């Protein structure tokens, strides 16, 4: 119950924390912490404008994305508690749910027939070719370390926590996962969520034609995605627990908000990469996760 409510309520808060951090770095007040909630409420009340060239695929894009991301969220254990849905091999479903979401987002973008959106879709799938293997390597390492084939099992690790012997591969995986998190949630240095320059965007350019509630769904789904991937990363990075439920939940929320601050700091202190350098970064993420796996096979 707490899992589901956290999954559904907390994500927009992360964007608020990131924006506050960025605002602090650039010396301004910034939007309120809850701005994303206000934006969502506003978008949901608006009417929908549909391009005459689009079909049902355009409508399905954001909705399928939202559904798949929520499903993926239900597979991931949040905090120290098991996920609502657990079965052996659910990590494969987890990875492919993101694949499905991507397929529908890009299909919806292509459906508009706009040159920009086609460009955005091409970039998205090109970069996905590199970030997906990285994610699989990361999951593989976790499977190997924990000996479990469920997300809940592998992310919680063996009873008593991960041993020191696997610290090195886990650090590599954590670094790789952080890059994947930045890439998948369209943050700097891969993409710039603030930009409105249609020629440089990746994710934002694919949703240019979405408006009103559909845009709200897109925005909400991307916040959820950050929550889900952030949760996965936190399990690897900071598997702290007190053993008491009433302390563990706030601890997890704090960790997650801390992660949002870190993302905000990264966005503030560096510029975006040149588009053709993005694959290098993602390849690096893949290599990090891959080397993590190699280390385990010694």
């Amino acid at each position, binding site marked *: 119950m707490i899992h589901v409510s956290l999954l559904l309520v907390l994500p927009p808060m992360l964007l608020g924390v990131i924006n506050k951090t960025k605002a602090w770095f650039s010396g301004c007040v910034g939007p309120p912490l809850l701005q994303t909630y206000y934006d969502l409420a506003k978008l949901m009340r608006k009417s929908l404008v549909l391009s005459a060239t689009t079909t049902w695929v355009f409508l399905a894009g954001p909705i399928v994305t939202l559904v798949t991301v929520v499903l993926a969220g239900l597979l991931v254990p949040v905090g120290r508690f098991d996920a609502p849905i657990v079965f052996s091999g659910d990590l494969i479903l987890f990875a492919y749910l993101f694949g499905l979401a991507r397929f529908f987002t890009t299909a919806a973008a292509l459906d508009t027939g706009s040159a920009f959106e086609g460009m955005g879709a091409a970039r998205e799938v090109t970069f996905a070719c590199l970030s997906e293997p990285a994610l699989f390597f990361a999951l593989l390492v976790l499977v190997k370390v924990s000996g479990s084939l469920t997300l809940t099992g592998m992310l919680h690790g063996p009873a008593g926590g991960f041993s020191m012997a696997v610290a090195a591969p886990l650090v590599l995986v954590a670094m790789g996962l952080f890059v994947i998190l930045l890439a998948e949630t369209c943050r700097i240095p891969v993409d710039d969520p603030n*930009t409105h320059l249609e020629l440089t965007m990746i994710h934002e350019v694919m949703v240019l034609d979405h408006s009103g509630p559909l845009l709200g769904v897109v925005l909400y789904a991307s916040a959820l995605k950050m929550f889900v991937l952030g949760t996965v990363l936190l399990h690897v990075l900071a598997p702290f627990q007190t053993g008491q439920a009433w302390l563990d939940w706030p601890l997890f929320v704090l960790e997650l908000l801390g992660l949002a601050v870190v993302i905000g700091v990264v*966005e503030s202190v560096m*510029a975006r990469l040149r588009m053709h350098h993005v694959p290098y970064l993602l390849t690096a993420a893949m290599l990090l996760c891959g080397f993590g796996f190699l280390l385990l096979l010694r």
Partner: protein
Amino acid sequence: MNPGTTNLATFANGRALDLASIPTLGIAEFEQSILEGVSLGQRITALFATSAGSAEQTLLYAILSDDKQNRLYVGRTQVEGDQFPSLTPRCPQTHMFEREIAEQFGIKPIGHPWLKPVRYHRSWTCRDAWDRPPGEPIIPAVGDFFRVDGDEIHEVAVGPVHAGVIEPGHFRFQCHGEMVYHLEIALGYQHRGVERALLGGPTKRSIHYAETLAGDTTVAHATAYCQVVEALARCPKTARAQTLRAIALELERLANHVGDLGALAHDVGFLPTASYCGRIRGDILNMSALLCGNRFGRGMIRPGGVGFDADETRATELLRRLDDAEQDATVAVNLLWNTPSAMARFEDTGPLPLKIAAELGVVGPAARASGLMRDARHDQPSGLFRFVHIPVSTCETGDVFARAFIRWLEIQQSIEFVREQLRAIPAGSTMVSLNSLSPNCMAVALNEGWRGEVCHVAITDERGCFTRYKVVDPSFHNWIALAYALRNQAISDFPLCNKSFNLSYCGHDL
């Protein structure tokens, strides 16, 4: 006397010249003079047409500037009928000028390689260079575009409505994947007809037209207008007014350069410099407001002098604010230079080689970034710049980094200049009354606005009213350079390149 231009009349920036003393050459001789001048390193500052009385006759004027010798040359020729031979194949600088002449006067430059309208308006005469029927509406950016063929080539059309709040313009990219083979820019959406509105002037409205030619270049355009009028009225200049004008001009440069550096940082997603520079730009605009009550300097420059005086207390306050702005800008901008990820985006992006910049006749910081020593404050000084020299800053690489770094060099020079001038504003009056304008004369004023050379040319009739008023905004020279700089670049770098030139749409469209 320059051997190549003996048959053109010689004069200087900010002077009036009797129309009778401008030689009327045969068309072949006219072209030869231009080509020889350009081959000697001169540059075409303006090339424009006027009607010569009868409908069948058009006069072409060329104004060349010799930057090394601080001289201007002017010549004219008479075109009979509806065509004249194009210079563009032999002299690419004339490319846009000839298109403009064709559009305004309906005469065809024969042999022009890419004859398209510039601003998409009706011609001022009864002819039309494209033989469009009179009733048919003319819509900007409708017509031929350069196309690259091939299965793997795709075309991206951007604008006129952009995702940000900026001026309208249409950009057509021929891309191979992420790489741009060719970019063609079509403007004209902001055409207001200022040149024609100024005819018959000067009237009460004229100065306001000049101030609003390009909002961010208010002071430079207003100064050029006033210099033209003052030259035609042969009025004396006061030292105090010239100093205040120069201060206003440099404040305008400071505000825009600082704003540009912030915008460049924003385009690569580097937030700290972006937001600090945005704020500092506001501080500098407020200094202009302290000077004349308007952040963009409107009302400051008036024919005969300046509209507002700066007393001792105001000068002191400006000096104090200037120190603050300098301190803040130094921190914010150095942060940009010291961030490797931002520099990685700037360096080698959108290079404009020296040779191309010279051929295209690029002006302003964009020219200096490619290594051209070209600064009207230095080459064709007017007003205070005749007495106080600002060193010309140049770079070599011609990429986005060079265009950004030039701005920082100029910011430092301008701050030093403004500080020096504010400490010693000469005493005297700020305004002299104007006589009526000399009849049958031409006057030219060149001014280095923050974006580059602003050129105003006025020709008076026998009553001393404008029969032709020509404005050349630096953007008119430079848009083609942006298109060139983007060749073989990633399309995702376009906004960054565009911002590094930061050209004006309304200054081009007039």
